[in-house]
């Protein structure tokens, strides 16, 4: 009888996705979410496991969603016949494939798990429905994602101008 304790009944049960919550809470993408909003948003997320070397999506496939890396690492590559061109190497907390949340176009690159990896997938149909039902939070997240995409576009523009300048410098006739 002495072993009896009310503690398990009185203590708050740990959320089954607590590890996911802890990771998302730290991401800048969700820094405007309060815990309740984040828990609600987590209902959209699919947790997917990939083994080392497994393809997550391929270039030119129809894209449906974006992924946040929970554990492991992902290589974003442009496959070519001679040698794959690596565009990015991403680790826990990074996300990729966000363009698919906005448009129905094909994937612009291939993503491959570089080690055993767990991803949190957010997909367009769920995201659209969520934004319609929770316009305030949905808008905030969309705005945040749009900001990130703008920043990536600016960086790409800068790199493009730099490369163009270098090409012109090496070969003035091409200008």
């Amino acid at each position: 009888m002495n072993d009896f304790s009310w503690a398990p009944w009185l203590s708050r049960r740990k959320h089954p996705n607590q590890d996911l919550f802890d990771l998302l809470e730290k991401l800048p993408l969700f820094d405007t979410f309060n815990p309740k909003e984040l828990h609600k948003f987590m209902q959209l997320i699919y947790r997917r496991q990939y083994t080392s070397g497994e393809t997550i999506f391929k270039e030119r496939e129809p894209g449906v969603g974006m992924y946040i890396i929970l554990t492991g690492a992902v290589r974003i590559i442009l496959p070519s016949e001679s040698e794959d061109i690596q565009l990015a190497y991403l680790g826990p907390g990074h996300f990729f494939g966000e363009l698919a949340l906005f448009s129905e176009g094909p994937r612009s690159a291939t993503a491959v798990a570089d080690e055993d990896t767990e991803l949190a997938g957010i997909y367009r149909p769920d995201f659209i429905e969520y934004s319609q039902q929770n316009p305030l939070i949905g808008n905030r997240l969309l705005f945040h994602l749009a900001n990130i995409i703008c920043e990536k576009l600016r960086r790409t523009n800068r790199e493009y101008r730099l490369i163009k300048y270098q090409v012109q410098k090496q070969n003035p006739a091409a200008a």
Partner: protein
Amino acid sequence: MSRYFTPFQKLILGVAGLGVMLLILYLMRSILTPLALSLALTFMLNPLVNALERAGLPRVVGVILALGLLAALLGLGGYFLFPKAYLQILSLRADLPVYMDTLKQHGLQAQKSLHRSFPWIQQINFVSQGVDALHMLVIRLFQDIPTIISSVFSILAIFLLMPITTFFLLKDGHQIKRAFLQSVPNRYFERVLNVVYRVEYQTVAYVRGLLLESLLVGAMSTIGLLILDVKYALVIGMLAGFANMVPYLGPVVGAVPAVLFTLMDPSGSPWWLVVLMFYIVQIIDNNLLQPLIYGRSLNLHPIMIMFAIILGSQWAGLWGMLLAVPTLGILKVFVQELAKELRYRLV
């Protein structure tokens, strides 16, 4: 999977899987009708449950409230309408031979005048053939009604299976879908998820719209027939609402009995007023209700719909006609997704 099976083995496994699914469906055939009705009810009640959940109620409470509201509405409707409809059906059943005779007399008179004007068609006795066929059809319909009702609404299905299935589909439908999607291998995950959502969006919007539209058309037709003082207004109005579920053919099937009864009942309203009333109901339905209810949920060509309904009726009778359009919508999603995949690969 590609690491363990050759393409031929995968094909064999796919065919075997399909066979097992068909076998399971065949074994489940007795509960398919209540299951389909539960699904339709779930589609109807889901927006209400979602709204209650967004308002802060636990989902299970929302489901109980929505089902309670439905039970109350059905109970009230049944209490007020069922006895009247039942009496009208009994009276119609008793009066039917008289109506058939009157119809035959009218037809024979018309045939005589037609034969006088066009003697070359005298060998065709279309009235007695037509009336006999109609008589057989109506008798079969009246014989079939109890069978149809008992197969659809067996006591067990009504009191046990349908409410329980609807309750769990409303409460856990989302989790069931997620569990299914989680089991899809990584390689096909995005494609399957996209197809599942698009099929769900189309089917839910269509079924929800169809039920709502039929209810409103049935109510408008009944009110119109009551105003015009047509005999058996309730039964004919309900038939018009039900028939409206079959696109293009339904509205005609709903209007014909009403016109026939007014033709045979000289004391009631003139037949052209009944035709005008059904025409107005169709104008309201096509121009106001359908754009509001369906939006662009299916966007199928009318010729495709007609072909689908004809094929559906040949393959599976009434159920085939009802399921033809959603099935066509699902096929359209598959074709569109395949076309998209091919287009992206060729770019």
